[in-house]
């Protein structure tokens, strides 16, 4: 690591001030992505602002037809939450399969969405569920945040809460990369009043994306049977040492089918 300054504010406004005052400062949530990058000297930051002492950022609440999860809620807290389980059980399953217990006890939903790793799990759920990302300055639709057009938050922006509209059905099915346990391919399927969404993660260099062919088929009939004949175009998918584009395209079909099975189970 390169040397850096460290503060641990106890209010959001203190954090905002610290962030505004120091160009290049970075927010620290669970540190599960940021700290490894710092250790490898891939990043040099003048100041780390640790969000862990700010109260109220890890609240989980049902608000009418919305499930609200604070940005600093850890994966383990989501996985253990009865509120989440009652509202969107598929999220409990998703959070419970991120990394390993250490990662789940430290890593946060906000950190995961802000970081937006192309193989991360939460972004798939956020896009499939058409979540709203609430920051200290605005509310951003996941559709915009993950469209590739919107390159993350502004320098002085702090994600505070994620609002998930509660769908009729939702499930996430992941084929883990055997080494990292990130998604080699993961598919989130949501059926809501506004329609069906299918989102793939792990397969695209720019992160999560919707899969229109599968959405069309599932909108016509929400069952795994209709998916079998659909061949996913592999031309824009990731090829790497863990799997080529053709394999990933195939897995999108398989994981979507399994997510649909889980939705209907």
């Amino acid at each position, binding site marked *: *690591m390169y040397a850096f300054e460290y503060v641990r504010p106890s209010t959001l406004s203190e954090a905002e001030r610290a962030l505004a005052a120091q160009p290049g400062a970075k927010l620290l949530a669970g540190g599960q992505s940021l700290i490894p990058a710092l250790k490898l*000297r891939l990043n040099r930051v003048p100041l780390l602002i640790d969000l862990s002492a700010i109260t109220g950022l890890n609240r989980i609440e049902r608000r009418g037809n919305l499930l609200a999860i604070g940005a600093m809620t850890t994966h383990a807290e989501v996985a253990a939450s009865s509120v989440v389980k009652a509202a969107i059980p598929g999220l409990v399953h998703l959070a419970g399969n991120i990394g390993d217990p250490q990662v789940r006890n430290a890593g946060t939903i906000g950190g995961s969405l802000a970081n937006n790793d192309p193989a991360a799990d939460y972004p798939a759920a956020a896009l499939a569920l058409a979540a709203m990302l609430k920051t200290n300055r605005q509310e951003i639709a996941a559709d915009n945040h993950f469209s590739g057009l919107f390159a993350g938050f502004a320098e002085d922006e702090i994600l505070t809460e994620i609002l998930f509209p509660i769908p009729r059905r939702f499930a996430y099915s992941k*084929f883990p990369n055997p080494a*990292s346990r990130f998604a080699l391919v993961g598919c989130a399927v949501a059926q809501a009043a506004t329609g069906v969404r299918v989102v793939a993660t792990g397969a695209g260099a720019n992160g999560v994306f919707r899969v229109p062919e599968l959405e069309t088929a599932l909108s016509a009939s929400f069952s795994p049977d209709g998916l079998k004949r659909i061949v996913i175009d592999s031309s824009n998918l990731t090829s790497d*040492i863990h799997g080529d584009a053709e*394999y990933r395209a*195939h*897995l999108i079909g398989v994981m979507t089918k399994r997510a649909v099975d889980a939705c209907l189970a």
Partner: protein
Amino acid sequence: MSETGIGKPVRRREDIRFITGNGRYTADINRPGQVYAVFVRSPHAHARIRNIETTAAIAAPGVAGIFTGKDLEADRIGKLICGWMIHSKDGSPMNMGAHPALALDRVRYAGDHVAVVLADSVEQAKDAAELIAVDYEPLPAAVHLTEAQAASQPQIHEEAPNNTVYQWHLGDKAAVDAAFARAAHRTRLEFTNNRLIPNAIEPRAAVAEYDAASGGYTLYTTSQNPHVTRLVLSAFIGIAPENRLRVVAPDVGGGFGSKIFIYAEEVVCTWAARKIGRPVKWVADRSESFVADAHGRDHHTVAQAAMDAEGKILGLRVRTKANLGAYLSTFASSVPTYLYAPLLSGQYDVPAIYCEVDGVYTNTTPVDAYRGAGRPEATFVIERLVEVAAREMGIDPAEFRMRNFIRKFPHQTPVLSNYDVGNYPACMKVALESADHAGFAERKRTSTAKGKLRGLGFSAYIEACGIAPSTAIGALGAGVGLWESAEIRVNATGTVEVLTGTHAHGQGHETTLAQIVSERLGIPIDQVSVIHGDTDKVQMGMGTYGSRSAAVGGSAVVRALDKVVLKATRIAARCMEVPEDSVEFTDGVFSARGTNRTMKFAEVALQAYLAHKFDTAEIEPGLKESAFYDPTNFTFPSGVHIAEVEIDPETGNTRVERWTAVDDFGNLINPMIVEGQVHGGIAQGIGQALLERTVYDDTGQLLTASYMDYCMPRASDLPSFDVAMTNTPCPSNPLGVKGCGEAGAIAAPAALINAITNALGHEDIEMPATPGAVWRAVALRAEKRAAE
């Protein structure tokens, strides 16, 4: 019989300190005034060094010194060595390129050592390292094993034309050709034995200091064999004479071979400690371990078997290219030769074998011994061959093996090994039963009904442990003897210290060696301490690898105990005033036959040191004996492993559903520890066959250089192992033990690939059988079926 004696599943005494964080590893050692070493490593797989500019770095805060290869050369520090001379077919000695601890004018793999920075803190050393400007002229790299010998490839060492270290062979070519000529069936396989990255849980580390008053050095290091490290550092590197060099390997967190070798880092740290007059500490970080610890395996092999019409093997022909990396690591040359080909006969009565091996340089991390070292490679060759031969000939693979098993011992193979004892059919029978082989068809039907592919595979492995005797291996080119030493120090109060030249880094010697003493002296294990890993304490030793510690080290303990008992008997006789030959020693008590006189072991120990009751002109006071034990032969553990897998054809994911291991390790000192060794070995073997993939790109960059990409086995990847033993005691050592540390890693890969290919219905899959590869293989299966 002692409750803590031989054969008892005594809990590992050392685990309390490991589990409670009280272990003392090299990284835990700090010396006053120490500086931290950081190595500048080559980012290129192959490059000329035009210049190394250190002016800015040397002025950076906290920097105590920066050194390059030129500084070592100026101080006449020797190059790193390879301690086993291999001769090519034509009789010429192997072509070995120089291996400087810090590069001189060329770097030969990404991670090669270019300079060392010493500073008050690690971070300062890293900061300064970034200020060093190395002017590299990148050169094309020879990266891939199967291409590296082509004339068009870049030359890595002038001394080795066509990047060929040796072209070695073993066996009778003419006899094999004749066997193939008259064969009714021939089987041919071509495959890669994948390169593995060792990944001991504790990264390598070194803390070196120089004492100007005595002129002596102390090196604390993560070593499996501290005495060999001292010998090499003094005799070849020229740091200091042995009597001025103390090497301590304290608690060491796993080695698997990777900590046998004498690496650049400990040489540089020891030398630099004197150079700058301050202790020097280096601890590898995990990223460094990936590129700087010697890797394992990496063979490309074409293997052929010739059978008669009944499936009797007539001959084997094996052609292997072995990737040795960019430099010859300490024992690299021996692994694909004398640790490999002598095991190619497996458990089978094979009349003729011929094996050719090319040792090949590439611009990659050096390759050396890794758990099993040569023997997993040999087992993979023979166990894949027999399995495929059986399938091709329509003979049940178990039956095919039964037909070919050696049944008479001793058995001389055509490839040097002389097997002393074994009972292969017995092992197979137990394995078939434990694995419920008869129920497999039903389990397969259940899997098929779920849309899954199920397969079962065997591996009837053999290994050679406790490599010996020293005269024999010396004749094969080894630069060391492979005996072991032990010293038994009995204290006046009857407690005992065992000093062993073996070194424990996870194996549990502090328990098992103490059990031997407990058994023999009839004292509880808590009165016995095992001391190892310090050249100032232990007289001499060859360390731990090759499953040698019980067979060789344990036998040395037995020999030293023999001497202790002999002397104690003489003293007891004097004390009891009876003739020596009337004294018996059982369960810790000396008794005089025909009398009611007895003395406990501790009483005799006290008398040995009081020396009041015997004539010290006749018997020396004290009770301390040592022994050097050289075995008469290797030991030959063997066994049968049966793997059962279920493949999800949709994703290519393979689940290991069942694992049966039936091993013959001879007598067991501690069955619980043996079982643990088997578990760990199988886990690593499953890792090799399913998960662990090392990938270099065409420019020689290691792409799998972290756990994000290099997949180590996790508990969830493994089934519950069903482990059983059939024990035929080993005749060539006093304990009757054979060695168990590598068995699982040797047996497992072939069993697993045999199971996967059985499920697939064809043989086209390489290790590791990753989900992506298996998915392709399933598609190939569909194509093959369609074509039929």
